[in-house]
């Protein structure tokens, strides 16, 4: 009985009432509008955006510039301990901080590493906000949040036996860069792993020892630049 009814209904060529016709038409219209709207929104999202592209280029340029500047920097702490020849006892010492870089490394990084190494109250972490900008204002400013962290894990260190076994640790650097605002903004992260190495030279020997020079050298090696807000959670490797 039911089967016959269904078959009859399926084969029926009778129309429907105007009410159901309009209702069906409305539902179909709403569905099609929703689908087309979704497609247009998705299309807009992936559409080329000149500002976003320019922000990406500006941010990546600043990231590479900072990375290169830090990679080519070597900071050297030189401690010269003088010795009295007649009784062979230490006669004071002098400490010098130098950098072979005359730009970013020599101007900023040297002071920061010196402060973190010499000042016992400085702590194991230092943060600093920098602005990367051009003189003509052609490019948008890039904000760089720089974080220097002492690597106290013990893997990379130098123990100075001439200075009561004082230990020098390496410093890792992480820089979060951002250019632009809103949906067009671009964020990147640069990580640089620090290394520390040291050597000791003696001027003279035995009873004619005059000075002991200890040099501690800090250098950095960059990882890949990561594109994205938080490299620990997400991000595309550039």
């Amino acid at each position, binding site marked *: 009985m039911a089967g016959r009814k269904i078959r009859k209904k399926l084969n029926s060529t*009778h129309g429907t009432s105007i009410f159901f016709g309009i209702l069906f038409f409305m539902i179909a219209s709403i569905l099609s509008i929703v689908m087309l709207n979704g497609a247009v929104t998705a299309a807009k999202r992936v559409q080329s955006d000149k500002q976003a592209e320019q922000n990406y280029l500006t941010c990546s340029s600043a990231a590479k510039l900072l990375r290169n500047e830090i990679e080519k920097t070597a900071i050297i702490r030189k401690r010269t301990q003088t010795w009295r020849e007649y009784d062979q006892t230490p006669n004071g010492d002098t400490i010098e901080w130098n950098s072979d870089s005359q730009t970013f490394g020599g101007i900023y990084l040297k002071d920061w590493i010196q402060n973190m190494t010499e000042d016992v109250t400085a702590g194991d972490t230092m943060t600093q906000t*920098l602005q990367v900008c051009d003189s003509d204002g052609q490019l948008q400013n890039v904000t760089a949040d720089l974080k220097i962290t002492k690597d106290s894990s013990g893997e990379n260190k130098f123990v100075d036996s001439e200075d009561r076994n004082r230990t020098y640790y390496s410093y890792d650097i992480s820089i979060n860069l951002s250019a632009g605002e809103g949906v067009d903004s671009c964020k990147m992260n640069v990580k640089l792993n620090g290394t520390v190495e040291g050597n000791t030279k003696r001027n003279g020997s035995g009873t004619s020892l005059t000075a002991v020079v200890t040099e501690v050298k800090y250098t950095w090696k960059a990882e890949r630049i990561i594109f994205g807000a938080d490299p620990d959670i997400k991000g595309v490797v550039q």
Partner: protein
Amino acid sequence: MRKKTIVSRIMSNSAATKLRSNSGESIVETLVTMIILSLAVVMLSGAVVTSARVNQRAENADTAFISSQNQPVSHMISILKGTGEGANLNVNLYQTENGYIYYESQ
């Protein structure tokens, strides 16, 4: 020849009847029509999104290609801490034909 004439006559009669008919379609025919139309809309929207993606990729490739052919100019970039003081660095500045600017260390 005669057969053909009969077939064409039957067909034209059927088409004329169909055109003059005021009875509706069956529900099965209506449902099949709806499915075909829905698939058409889905494919159309997919095509719109895909074409936008392809355009984006082409634009990126174009930018990269034009960038590699440009001659750089020397430019000064400053890294500032707060206001006033800063480290000045000379870089090679590139400008693409479609107006994008980027720079590299010298």
